[in-house]
């Protein structure tokens, strides 16, 4: 498939004409946005300011892709575009159906490639309180030739982002050998030269869940061996542009793409061993205390119910050796609940293999992980309660190392 054909596949040529007519753009900021009519102008102004601050002699441009908003975001974005008499040129990508965030990200990358951008800044319109200087900090390593991919690292509380800290990041670290904090940071910067090699032909037709494209971008960077830099930002605050999905759906939309990407990059990850630290700009901030400690009991109850009722499903996914280690957990008091990292890593590895072997419908398989994940979160919270804040990073590290130790077993079973 030619590049031109691929672009037309995601958005009509005409929607890029305004920006393309201004000539090649050195730095493109691509904002993907859904249902943020009230906040759209603020977010875009921030992005605009970040671009202006780091433009220098470079030509810059802002592109916005609306992933089918229902609240007038598209109109707000167009009004913002038309209001910009001075400053970087602004454009709106009219996505072709099906419109969703995954395709919006791919369209922005394709458009940046078409504009021959040297650097691309991707920003999720849901991010709240993101500052222009932080976005500028993301772009700088790319503009300085220091990195091909820049990922954000956030300050977080103990039980914030438990899916990231307990599954997505440790598994990604073990697979691709880089100790990255965020696999879906909501913003990232990348070198324009890398886009072509990462956007494989036909990738537009992939079944991308809302978070799938973001996960793919991080994974593509890691799998390709791109030079990586993490930039320390503040807290990750998000104002979702719509009702939040239930936990099982979140797992389907995040763990599903992660497992799918294991298949896409199965020529790469089995040969990688160990993990290396990622270059970082800014000092890692200390883990903060939770404003409200999550209740453990409902999570343990969910785990127990899963162990009681979902066993016939789990038996299709996990071997008896794993299940035998789970059975005794049903007898433990919630305040003493333990699901240790090595066992959790084995559970995730079993699910990945079962997903790969299509032992049951993939949606069912991923949803069946929910009680186990809640059990792991409960165990993590119990452990964190008894751990001083300063030593919480050690807990994260323990999870990461458990996934690394599990990898050999995973590779042996992955055919």
């Amino acid at each position, binding site marked *: 498939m030619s590049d031109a054909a691929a672009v037309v596949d995601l958005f009509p040529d005409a929607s890029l004409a305004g920006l393309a007519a201004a000539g090649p753009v050195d730095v493109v900021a691509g904002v993907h946005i859904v249902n943020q009519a009230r906040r759209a102008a603020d977010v875009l102004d921030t992005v605009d300011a970040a671009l202006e601050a780091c433009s220098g002699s470079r030509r810059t441009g802002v592109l916005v892709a609306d992933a089918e908003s229902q609240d007038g975001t598209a109109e707000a974005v167009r009004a913002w575009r038309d209001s910009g008499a001075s400053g970087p040129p602004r454009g709106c990508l009219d996505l072709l159906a099906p419109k969703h965030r995954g395709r919006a990200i791919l369209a922005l990358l394709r458009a940046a490639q078409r504009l021959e951008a040297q650097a691309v800044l991707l920003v999720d319109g849901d991010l709240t309180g993101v500052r222009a200087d932080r976005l500028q900090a993301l772009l700088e390593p790319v503009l300085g030739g220091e990195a091909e991919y820049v990922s954000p690292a956030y300050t977080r509380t103990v039980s914030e982002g438990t899916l*990231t800290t307990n599954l997505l990041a440790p598994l990604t670290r073990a697979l691709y050998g880089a100790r990255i904090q965020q696999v*879906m940071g909501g913003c990232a910067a990348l070198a324009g030269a890398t886009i072509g090699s990462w956007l494989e032909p036909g990738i537009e037709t992939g079944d991308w869940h809302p978070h799938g494209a973001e996960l793919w971008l991080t994974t593509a960077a890691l799998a390709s061996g791109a030079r990586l830099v993490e930039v320390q930002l503040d807290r990750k605050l998000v104002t979702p542009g719509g009702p939040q999905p239930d936990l099982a759906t979140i797992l389907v939309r995040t763990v599903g793409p992660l497992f799918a990407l294991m298949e896409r990059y199965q020529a790469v990850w089995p040969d990688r061993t160990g993990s290396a630290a990622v270059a970082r700009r800014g000092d890692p901030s200390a883990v903060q205390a939770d404003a409200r400690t999550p209740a453990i009991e409902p999570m343990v109850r969910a785990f127990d119910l899963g162990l009681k*009722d979902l066993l016939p499903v789990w038996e299709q996914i996990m071997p008896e050796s794993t299940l035998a280690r789970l059975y005794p957990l049903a007898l433990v008091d919630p305040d003493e609940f333990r699901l240790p990292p090595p066992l959790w890593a084995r559970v995730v590895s079993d699910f990945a293999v079962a997903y790969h072997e*299509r032992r*049951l419908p993939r949606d069912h398989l991923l949803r069946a992980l929910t009680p186990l994940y809640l059990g792991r979160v409960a165990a993590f919270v119990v452990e964190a309660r008894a751990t001083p804040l300063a030593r919480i990073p050690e807990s994260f590290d323990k999870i990461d190392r458990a996934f690394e130790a599990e990898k050999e077993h995973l590779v042996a079973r992955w055919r």
Partner: protein
Amino acid sequence: MQDSWADILVKSFREVASRLAVFAPRLLAVLTLVLAGWLVAAGARRLAIRILGAADIDGRCARWGITATLGRTGIRRPPSELVGQLVFWLILLVGMLMAIEALEVPAAVGLAPVIIRFLPNLLVAIFVMVIGWLLANFLAQALLIFIVNAQLRGGPALAGALRWLVILFAASVALTQLGIAREMILLVFGIVFGGTTLALALAFGFGGRHLARNALESWLQKREDREPDDMSHL
């Protein structure tokens, strides 16, 4: 006396010989038909497996989860081989029916055309049952996972009920296709479904309205009391 004994002996030999003369060609025809049927069936099985292999049916079935579902019921053979076996036995069955017809046994006269006419319906009925069974397992599993993730009890019972409901529905469609007691099945199915729905409606509306109200209130209360999932998982 001696003549009579010899006559009887010769007569019975002649009788057997004449019967054999009539039966032997038929027996030979039967053996030929069975052998030919077996050869054609074996060839057709091999051809079917090759065609299905070229179309990557095994790979597709694995991707669609059909192989795994079959595996759970103890069927370990690849789907292409299963279809090949079905083709083999169908052709062999036709060959054997022709062989029975060739015997000209009074009881079996006209049996072959009847069975052959019945075969398409049988195939459709088998197909309906297979699809119904797959659908029943899929829906029951989806319901079970949904109920457990909603942290409600009684998931296995409800999932089991749904599985049997779908299988019963598929069975009734299959039996209707076969033309077996069509009216009776429609009637029974209508009564069972209609009766169950009516019984549940009456139970909730009259007999168990307090219980139903309490159950609903308790369920809604539990939902309200449940800790809001204010954790940021990502």
